């Protein structure tokens, strides 16, 4: 017996929410396919199938009803985000490993949808980058730079069968990787930014994909699926930290614009840090959470061992989210700031 209210908002389901978020990913994904070849479609579909498979398996083992959980669309969003975070044209078992850790370990071992402490896609990504760093740095090269651009059938073969073509023909390091290698090699950051992988501001092609993510993110904010707090604070955290580091040491540090458009900054700001299950939920908490994640991202990029820091910084802040929430509860109607009853 369920009581009032007897009317619910129409067209308002978890599935619909997920579909809208995925719709916001379409421009970025199309741009990705345009600049880096059709390999993304293979990893996208493969990750999606793996996601559904692992979700069904986990539900079966947990003895939970299949239909509602599978039809909420959340696992497809996780798969999509992982596919965009892992290099395309990598062997099939890399995606399988990533999706296993994302869906089974990060999501279902914590109790399924809504219960997970960590963002599932980022857990999958981090397991892969820690375990298989070589594969995880072989990104598909921009089509304009590649000596070999596989078509859809070739991409399928590369992923599932492997080939005798050396990966150097169709992959390259990312621009963040390049900067890191060059600066570690004792050169200045300017030396890195003249490499062919560098485009106008950041990675060739990737910078425009990032702009497309930004457009998708604005769509999310306009549709009130996410509030402005997390994206703005995350990007501000990145820009301010990058700006400060550049001022301190301009020869070895790239500027704020570079950091905003390189790597996973935009994807992280609008689609990963905003995951409501694992992020902070209070307005002030969101600002602290995302600002700190942005700060950590640049710190890891600059001083850490891995080229990109988005995934690690978000996972670190995921740990702190419940704590931050508890101390940033907003003022309740009729109460003075700080929780005491108003006079």
């Amino acid at each position, binding site marked *: *017996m*369920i009581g009032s209210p007897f009317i619910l908002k129409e067209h308002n389901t978890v599935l619909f929410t997920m579909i809208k978020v995925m719709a916001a990913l379409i421009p970025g994904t199309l741009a990705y396919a345009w600049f880096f070849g059709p390999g993304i479609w293979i990893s996208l579909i493969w990750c999606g199938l793996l996601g559904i498979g692992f979700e069904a398996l986990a539900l079966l083992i947990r003895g939970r*009803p*299949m*239909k509602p959980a599978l039809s909420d669309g959340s696992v497809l969003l996780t798969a999509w985000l992982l596919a965009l975070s892992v290099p395309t044209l990598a062997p099939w078992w890399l995606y399988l490993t990533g999706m296993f850790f994302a869906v089974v370990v990060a999501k279902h071992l914590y109790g399924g949808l809504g219960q997970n402490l960590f963002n599932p896609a980022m857990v999958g990504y981090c397991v892969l980058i820690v375990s298989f760093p070589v594969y995880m740095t072989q990104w598909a090269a921009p089509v304009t730079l590649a000596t070999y651009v596989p078509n859809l059938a070739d991409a399928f073969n590369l992923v599932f069968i492997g080939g005798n073509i050396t990966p150097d023909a169709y992959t390259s390091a990312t621009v963040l990787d390049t900067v890191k290698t060059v600066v570690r090699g004792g050169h200045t950051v300017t030396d890195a930014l003249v490499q062919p992988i560098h485009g106008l501001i950041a990675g060739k092609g990737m910078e425009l994909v990032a702009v497309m993510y930004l457009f998708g993110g604005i769509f999310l904010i306009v549709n009130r699926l996410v509030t402005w707090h997390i994206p703005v604070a995350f990007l501000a955290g990145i820009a301010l930290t990058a700006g400060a580091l550049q001022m301190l040491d301009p020869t070895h540090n790239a500027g704020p614009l570079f950091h905003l458009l390189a790597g996973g900054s935009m994807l992280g700001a609008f689609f990963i840090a905003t995951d409501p299950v694992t992020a902070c939920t209070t307005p002030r908490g969101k600002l602290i959470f995302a600002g700190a994640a942005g700060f950590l991202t640049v710190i890891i990029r600059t001083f850490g061992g891995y080229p990109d820091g988005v995934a690690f910084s978000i996972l670190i802040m995921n740990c702190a989210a419940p704590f931050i929430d508890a101390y940033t509860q907003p003022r309740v109607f009729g109460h003075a700031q700080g929780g005491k009853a108003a006079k």
Partner: protein
Amino acid sequence: MISAVVVMAAIGLVLGAVLGWAELYFKVAGDPLADKINDVLPQTQCGQCGFAGCRPYAEAMAKGEADINRCPPGGEAGIQKLADLLGVEPKPFGEGVAPKPKSVAVIDENTCIGCTLCIQACPVDAIVGASKQLHVIVADLCTGCELCIAPCPVDCIHMEVVHETVNNWKWRYPVIPIQQERQTA
């Protein structure tokens, strides 16, 4: 060597003095643990625990002389609270001890002979009456301890379960028809 001994002894003396002072300064009258336990007990004063009321049972528990599963009126929730308070594992009720639904005693007005025995037995003075006059129980004050039943020489007292009314009705825990979905899935 000697200086070390002296220093250690001095530290020991100072700390000992601090401890002694704290003992006096922060001394709490009474037994705070027994008070806390007593607050958790339902105060039915029924003696089903084997003690002469809630307070003695609380004191026994505070001393660790009594188990936490001897208060049927407190129910499972009461055991849970006691377990939380005392930092022990909750225990199920023992043999023959089980919580009953909340009841109040009722005197049959046609049988009562006015002997005052039940008035003396009532631990919370919830029975009104005097010698050779009918006794009646004030339902709002009755804790349902059943102590008045045994003394009655004419067996005119019985327990009546308190039924749910508009006044004491509670909203139920939301039940979500998940079983149904499992069948269709």
